[in-house]
């Protein structure tokens, strides 16, 4: 077996190449981390320190007051409830939407790759295109539809919206995965008598567990982070967290409580950040699923 060394900047003599490499990487890492570092330390500074001092300095008198404010005391909607209720709204919205769109996506991907469906390629093309559309184009009719269904301005409405628009992504993820699924296994299962649902439930779905995870992570992140649909289809009782945060931050009246803004932004960012850190390579796989195969 031939050992094939991977390409690398081979240092010859002094390792200045490597030193420069690490220096550049560290500089870039610093630049990437800086905003979140700034957000974090300024979220625990009293307001006077922020106004008086510079953005990168350590807090002299750290306080959790801004976090408390952001979480439960700030005025966002009609009452001063902080971000807490909106945090809950986001969860209530995200979980059903992710689960349903994942389930439908898996079934769709399965059908599109394992069965002859009339116009299967066209359907695939239309689904693929649908994930790229600017959602501005559906805002007006969707608002109308939600109104007709009586769920305008509610969390239920948001669930419906995110489920529908999540189907496209899910279908694509699973379709790509099932397309590469070894056909011998499928044929062998069919010869053993596996029918439509058995084939899906007992063979393909279990094999695609990593993709299920990827899809859930990707959908969770996207739906949690959405703003446009939230801003368009919710009212003050049903704002998702992103909309609430934006309201908190963009209020033009009164004193700008930067530390509360930062704390709020952090609260909004935490769930997806945690998912990101915990899921590591699954997150990356989710990103890659959208790319062209070479």
């Amino acid at each position, binding site marked *: 077996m031939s050992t094939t060394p991977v390409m690398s900047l081979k240092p010859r003599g002094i390792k200045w190449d490597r030193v420069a490499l690490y220096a550049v990487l560290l500089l870039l890492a610093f630049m990437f981390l800086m905003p979140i570092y700034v957000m974090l330390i300024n979220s625990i500074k009293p307001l006077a320190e922020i106004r008086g001092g510079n953005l990168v300095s350590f807090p002299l008198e750290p306080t959790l007051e801004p976090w408390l404010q952001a979480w439960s005391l700030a005025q966002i909607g009609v009452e001063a409830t902080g971000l807490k209720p909106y945090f809950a709204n986001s969860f209530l919205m995200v979980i059903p939407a992710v689960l349903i769109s994942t389930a439908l996506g898996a079934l769709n991907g399965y059908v599109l790759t394992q069965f002859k469906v009339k116009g299967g390629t066209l359907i695939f093309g239309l689904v693929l295109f649908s994930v*790229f559309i600017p959602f501005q184009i559906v805002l*007006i009719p969707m608002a109308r539809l939600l109104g007709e269904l009586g769920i305008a301005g509610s969390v239920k409405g948001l669930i419906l919206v995110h489920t529908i628009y999540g189907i496209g992504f899910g279908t694509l993820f699973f379709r790509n995965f099932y397309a590469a699924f070894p056909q011998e296994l499928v044929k062998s299962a069919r010869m053993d008598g596996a*029918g*439509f649902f058995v084939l899906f439930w007992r063979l393909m779905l279990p094999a695609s567990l990593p993709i299920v995870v990827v899809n859930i992570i990707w959908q969770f992140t996207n739906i949690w982070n959405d703003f446009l649909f939230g801003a368009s289809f919710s009212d003050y009782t049903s704002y998702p967290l992103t909309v609430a945060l*934006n309201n908190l931050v963009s209020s033009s009246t009164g004193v700008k409580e930067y530390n509360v803004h930062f704390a709020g*932004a952090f609260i909004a960012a935490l769930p997806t950040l945690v998912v990101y850190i915990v899921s590591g390579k699954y*997150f990356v796989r989710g990103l890659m699923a959208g790319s062209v195969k070479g």
Partner: protein
Amino acid sequence: MKNRWLPALVLSPSIIMVGICVYGFIAFTFYLSFTASTILPTMTLATESNYERLFSLRNFFLSVKNLGVFSVLYIVISMLLGMFLAILIDQRIRAESLFRSIFLYPMALSFIVTGTAWKWLLDPSIGFERTMRLIGFENFVFDWIKDGEMAIYTVVIAAVWQTSGFVMALFLAGLRGIDGEVLNAARVDGAKNWRIYWRVIIPQLGPSFISSFVILAHMAIKSYDLVIALTGGGPGRATWLPSVFMYQYTFTRNEMAVGAASAVVMLIGIAIVVIPYVRREMRLNKGVQP
């Protein structure tokens, strides 16, 4: 399969939902752009062309111009930075996953969070400018975010920060897919490191270039959340993009038909970039269908 109709049946809920809520709605909005809708949708056709009005509006012209500036800078810088990061990370460095995670984490954040963070970072009164002045550079100026001419560039900065990690991931996958023996052959043939990247590696990264372009371009056209959080569209209308225009004209300025028209224009813009990619995928799908 005994049940010929079962697969189609399983697909049908999704087909119906996507059919109506994507393509049906597109048609609806398209129709609306020819009506006289103002506050609410109405079916009566307009007497004058909303598109003519659209293209005559300074606000729209400004939005499109901003989009042009923004997308070119955003796409080019993100691709270059992303590719550069990928090449660095590909050098078999220690703590590779740590660095990768650091460059990629902004993708996990909402644009609202990114906008909020950068908004204050770039604000002259408490952000970068002030910090530099406090350190000692008393005449340091960095008030782009408040400057009508320069504000759009702040959007570029925040957007590049958010997504270059993603481009890095794409290019890294592309780099790792290159056959190691070809690189060995290049070394034996006498190519030095940079020559190898230039002549052998980068030419093979075509698919990564294409993917990142398609995705970055469509994200640029759809950019809305970031602008709202970072600048609110301002100062004034200095950072308006077509997405902001659409929202404003539809929901705030009660010119729904014009808003609809702008949405259609956005769709066409995306379609131009995305349709070739979709068609290619559809062609390749022939090999996938049983």
